[in-house]
């Protein structure tokens, strides 16, 4: 059996709140195998998004270890984490998080440029065509609908062909038609690139499309 893509061992996350520290994650352990699709489910406030952020190295675990592609994320500083994500991880957010001052094409090209890809813009254009936005490359986020913005975000996450795709409720801000289209696209792209997908959702219909679900409750695996 090959090494897991993710190995989480007793992961803890405690954040400072106004009324003192709040325990968000309380000892989470599980593995994710290469090519697997995992749904993180659970009620609001259960810690799904926080866990995804810890797995993506966007949030620093306050305890335990997170190993991704054989490297211990908990030992890395912020810059090392950024370099690790480069080309290996694509992240899709509920609120799209496109850079408002950049066009769709420039948004998608940014991670490719960071990776030093010489034909970053050609590849970005191809990625936009894949998500059906070949005709809107020069548009700014403010000139696009929510569904279109999320498709740009998907193209941006997938363009460097990452080994890992992390998606945090990517349909949360979209209507059902657009939401379904985005999910189809997400699974298509995953299939196309063979990436490992970790998807945060509280939609049971989406969870069943994944290989397995990890349900969280109160910061722990239920």
């Amino acid at each position, binding site marked *: 059996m090959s090494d897991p893509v993710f190995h989480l061992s007793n992961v803890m996350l405690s954040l400072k709140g106004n009324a003192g520290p709040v325990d968000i994650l309380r000892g989470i352990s599980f593995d994710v195998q290469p090519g697997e699709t995992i749904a993180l489910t659970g009620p609001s406030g259960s810690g799904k*998004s*926080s866990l995804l*952020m810890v797995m*993506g190295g*966007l*949030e*620093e675990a306050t305890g335990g270890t997170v190993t991704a592609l054989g490297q211990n994320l908990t030992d890395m500083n*912020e*810059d090392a*984490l*950024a*370099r690790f*994500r*480069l*080309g290996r991880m694509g*992240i899709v*957010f*509920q*609120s799209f*998080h*496109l*850079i*408002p*001052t*950049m066009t769709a094409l*420039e948004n998608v*090209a*940014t*991670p490719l*440029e*960071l*990776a030093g890809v*010489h034909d*970053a*813009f050609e590849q970005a254009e191809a990625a936009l065509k894949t998500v059906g936005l070949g005709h809107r490359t020069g548009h700014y986020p*403010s000139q696009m609908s929510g569904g279109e913005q999320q498709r740009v975000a998907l193209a*941006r996450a997938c363009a460097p062909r990452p080994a890992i795709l992390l998606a945090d409720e990517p349909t949360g801000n979209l209507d059902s038609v657009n939401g379904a289209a985005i999910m189809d696209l997400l699974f298509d792209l995953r299939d196309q690139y063979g990436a490992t997908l970790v998807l945060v959702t509280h939609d049971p219909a989406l969870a069943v499309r994944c290989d397995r679900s990890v349900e969280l409750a109160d910061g722990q695996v239920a």
Partner: protein
Amino acid sequence: MSFRLATRFAQREMRGGLRGFRLLLACLALGVAAIAAVGSVRSAIEAGLTREGAALLGGDAELDFTYRFASAEERAWMEERAAKVSEIVEFRSMAVVGEDRALTQIKGVDDAYPLVGNMVLDPAIPLDQALATVNGVPGAVMERALSDRLGLSPGDSFTLGTKSFRLSALILREPDSAASGFALGPRTLLRLDALEGSGLLAPGTLYNSKYRLDLPPDTDLAQLETAAETDFENAGMRWTDARNGAPGVAQFVRRLSAFLVLVGLSGLAVGGVGVSAAVRAYLHGKTEVIATLRALGANRATIFQTYFIQIGTLSLLGIAIGLALGAIVPLLLSPLIEARLPVPATFAIYPAPLIEAAIYGILTALAFTLWPLARSENVRAATLFRDAWSGARRLPAPHYLIAITLLAIALVSIAGWFNGSWRLTLWTLGGIAGALLILALAAALIRFIARRASHVARGYPRLRWALAAISGTGEGAGAVVLSLGLGLSVLAAVGQIDGNLRQAISGNLPDVAPSYFFVDIQKDQMPGYTERLENDPAVSRIDSAPMLRGVITQINGRPAAETAGDHWVLRGDRGVTYAAAPDADTKITAGEWWPEDYTGPPLISFAAEEAEEMNLSLGDTMTVNILGRDITGTVSSFREVDFSTAGIGFILAMNPAALQGAPHTFISTVYAEDRAEAAILRDLASAYPNITAIRVRDAIDRVSSVLASLAAATSYGALATLLTGFIVLIGAAAAGAEARTFEAAILKTLGAPRRQIALSFMLRAALLGLFAGTVALFAGALGGWAVSHYVMETDFTLIWSSALMIIAGGIVATVLAGLGFALKSLNARPAQVLRSRE
């Protein structure tokens, strides 16, 4: 009803404190403080001049005659009215020690001097003792600048004309020095009767006699002035009294402070940009509140009033802070300021400059807040459901635009009224408005260029991100270019004008100017003088002309001012010459020169440019008072007179028969090689001790140092503008911090390390600073060119040292302003940033 409701809403909204309004408060406070401080210092100097008027003048009143002493009747007039009369004489001469010579401004005084105030000497001996004749050698005192130049110490001897004097002490403080105005040489003071036998003050020598009057306490100065002007009409007398003891200084202070207030207004305009940005940002943050109020039934007027009351209250607070600073800071710094001022000042809190600054502050605050406030009306209830703000009309309703225009007109009118010079006001404020327009257009152009260039910068991610950010509205390219640009524009204009003027004076002028001016050459000395120079191969040119001095009193039988207004030619006395034929270089522009043997009624040839400014025509008659005698001539020709080469140039020339009989001397310019200058001076000064030599280079240095002080004062004003600009810049950086933090979080998510993001942030700040500096340099150089070309009438070349400083200043300021916020943005954890946006 609506207003009371709005007041209640405003009170509730203001419970949140001053958060978000620090920028507004700082901008208004600083702009108002700068203007109030300039006005307070001006009032302090004016009060000082009034308080010390008699001391500055050396008496309660002064009667000044050129070329002559008062007649017995005139002395009797004075003695009849004054308790005491003091006679002094002032003229230029050369102080000589061995082979060393230096130009000095001699003041011969009588026993009564000084009528008011005290002379302070080093060593501290009484003036009587210092000027006493000991062993047949009269005493004299001089300024340290002169004694140092000649290597003299108290006890040493020196020569004036053909007579020896003993330096008995150095002048530490001369009570009436400010009234003497600009002097080319340092002062030597001695007894008037000691000048006898010195060969100085020969007929025709240029000197002024002054009679200071110690008047009874109840004297009505205005009435006495009128009486003097009636009784001494056409006697060439000039009146000054203690109400304005140093008119030259008072006028200079008024003009400089008027200009500095206008420079201060540019600071307030920059502050206005910041205020506008602060109000816009605040109202943008209140969009949801406004939309909710609209949804609950609030009409447009209520919304406008609610925020007008809030912004108005805070603006008044900012103005009050500015007024307090502008009143108190000069008071606290008064010992320092007084020590550096050459004139007395009485520091106190003066209401007038504070009222002036408050009016400017209120008008600026209104003009700059009305626009964003008016747009708050456009927020609709629908904004609660979708982002309708961006769809709001960009221009406010017409009645607001009319109000803003009226406010701008009021600001210009009040500024003109306060400083008394419409020309200066319109030029300066027009320049500021022009600079703002250029900067606003440049900001739009910069965003356009950045958008275009970001395509070209593909493959250079840091540069591309920087350009993409500049092209967006969020980064505030407009705010940066406007706020920083205006301060830098003013500084660039000052730098360019000062540099060009100094270049014209000390750079180009010595190449075309003569080496020496020799004045007070007697007619019988002219042959020997000319022979010495004509036989010197190092002398390339000698120009000589007879010189008298006269005051133009009437034009066409009416007081001259009625025709020519307050033209500089009419202020005080002017050099007048005569000639049978024009020089070979003289270019007659209209009319004809008189025949060489002409002996008819006096004819006048007048400088063409000045004649046009004074509305003179050929055939006009002009009365000139020379040595107390009125000579009326007819203007028969106009000619070009070029003052720019510092050669001999007379505004007014007459036919020889008109003036030849009057006692007069000659003036001469000598163009010689540098190496020959010392020998020429030595030979001529030895042969003709009464002649005064003015070295042109020394005069140029003296003028340059005065210009340097003026440029420094203006630069301080411009720095206040720049400081305001920097605060606005920090405000813009703070406003953009959230956007940058978000951007940094996304870029980290996509794999960018902090160093790369930081470099991109610095690059965008540096690029914006570079753009702002370059545009400011363009706007400032344009202003500098306009002033050089139209006002100073000198050539204009770009002064690169100043230009590069402006651009570097722009870069440093933007990078510094952005640095603190950039570090904060970089250190924020991406997960927290992104979660807050979910």
